[in-house]
């Protein structure tokens, strides 16, 4: 069995892109948008875990479900809890260290994209970026483990 990326791993690439952009914006003091993208990076990494390791499936019609009308977006902070209640068995156990602690995105809300952003501090943005980084590390380790097992 190969673990070469297919369409479903678009979530992994998207996670990386959002993360890199979040870091770039934060370094240029664009904290609100950096914070927002850090959440998207985390969401994509979590969806990659769900699809790649925990049995979720991308609908057959093509494209991630959020592209399709009538399907759920699956946003943080609930998405974090969804991974917790889905992770099981030997594969799921590898994500335990990540998910046993508190949800670092408990205060993140996708609808903040409509806010003026003045409430987002540099500290909060960097905290979310660090949390997204931890998620990406776990996701990439899991991919690597899958590829060589």
């Amino acid at each position, binding site marked *: *069995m*190969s*673990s*070469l*990326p*297919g*369409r*479903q791993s678009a979530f992994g690439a998207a996670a990386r892109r959002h993360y890199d952009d979040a870091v770039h914006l934060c370094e240029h003091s664009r904290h609100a948008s950096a914070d927002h993208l850090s959440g998207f990076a985390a969401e994509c990494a*979590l*969806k990659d875990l*769900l*699809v*790649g*390791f925990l*049995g*979720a*499936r*991308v*609908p057959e019609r093509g494209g991630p*479900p959020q592209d399709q009308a009538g*399907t*759920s*977006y*699956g*946003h943080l*902070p*609930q*998405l974090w*809890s*969804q991974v*917790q*209640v*889905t*992770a*099981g*068995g*030997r*594969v*799921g*156990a590898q994500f*335990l260290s990540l*998910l*046993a602690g*508190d*949800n670092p995105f*408990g205060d993140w809300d996708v609808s903040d994209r409509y806010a003026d952003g003045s409430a987002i501090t540099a500290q909060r943005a960097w905290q979310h970026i660090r949390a997204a980084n931890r998620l990406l590390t776990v996701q990439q380790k*899991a991919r690597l*483990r*899958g590829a060589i*097992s």
Partner: protein
Amino acid sequence: MTIRFDDAWQGARQVAEEVARGGRDVVLARDLTGRISLILDDRASALPSEDQASIERRLSAVAGPFAAAMPTLLASGLFAPEVFLDSSDLGLVEDRRIGRGRLRTADRGAVGGDWTTTPKASDKRVTLYGFKGGVGRSTATFLLARHLASEGRCVLVVDLDLESPGVGALLQHEANLPEFGLVDYLVEAAVGNEAGVDLVVRSQIIEPVGNGEVWVAPASGRPRRGYDYIAKLNRVYVDLPAGAEGDHGLRFADRIHAAVEACEAEVARRSRTPEVVLLDSRAGVHDLAAVAITRLSGYSLLFAMDNPQTWTGYRALFRQWGRIPELARTMRDRIQMVASFVPPGGGEGEYLSGFRDRAQACLAETLYDDAASDDPDAYNPAPADDSAPHAPLPIVYTGELVGLDHVRSPNWYSSTLVNAAYERFVRGAAEFVRGEP
């Protein structure tokens, strides 16, 4: 009062039942750390936020430290909710009825999930399982295979006791074992290289007169230089993650299932489709046993000695099924107790009577319906009911088998004493296999 693991689940279940009784579908989930959350299906009918807050408060109160950070989740907010909510690994506790919602559970363990998955069994497969080892299971498998073959059947015996294989060596001389065994199939299939892995052989030890055949799929291939059994065994329990497009990964249970199907297909190709497949399972609460009993086989013969630790073990095992009523109903129709080792002579009646009472008590507490139920269809057979799963098939103790070296005593199975000891088991199990108890 400190809320412990079991209290939290029981309390949460009551909350979930109350919500379901109000007409909403729910899934009660317990994650790998034991934390509990309730998934509320709001897709067809929205849930007012104050109602969600009230459920959340009640759940947090009963689950204490085992309440998840988000004690309730809305189905409408899940990523691909239909995949999660239509998953076959959810246990059905209460189905929808008029005015009532469906209650299901998602209990996530690091191992053990296969004990409560929906059975996908084949009636021709029979598992022989003992909660404890040393109960005569492999000998019983051998003698049952021989009996069924003497009736003209094609029988395949699969050695699923991968940690301590044995039945393969009973059924075939070591030099004539196939080149590969189940562990070879499992590691080769993990890299898509299973084609050409021949892993069954026709027994040259049981050679019935007539049309019957016995085939064996050993755990290990023929011992030879460079053949590393342990390195393979150490890799058989992995779940393979999803990979390329369209590939959703394979869980350990699926991999074992595929291996057993490959054995069956090979027998069919080389001779004829096996009519009976005997799975010699490993002992204990182990995932291999879970897969064999709940996923692969239509029937299971459960070996037990009449002692407290055995009944404590079976009670815990049955209770897992008993928590999901549909699974309890399915599993109690598919099991049969086997009493080993019955003391010969005068003590036999007393031993079997005590065994039967304790087996009935164990099943009445876990898988049978409530004895006080006024439902005329309730299933709760009395201890004396000979057709009930608790009425044991006896295996009598015989000193002939103690310390037996079957290589040095190649005709061990022809011994009158051995055959007498297993006679009632073999006859009863054959009827059970044929579906005519």
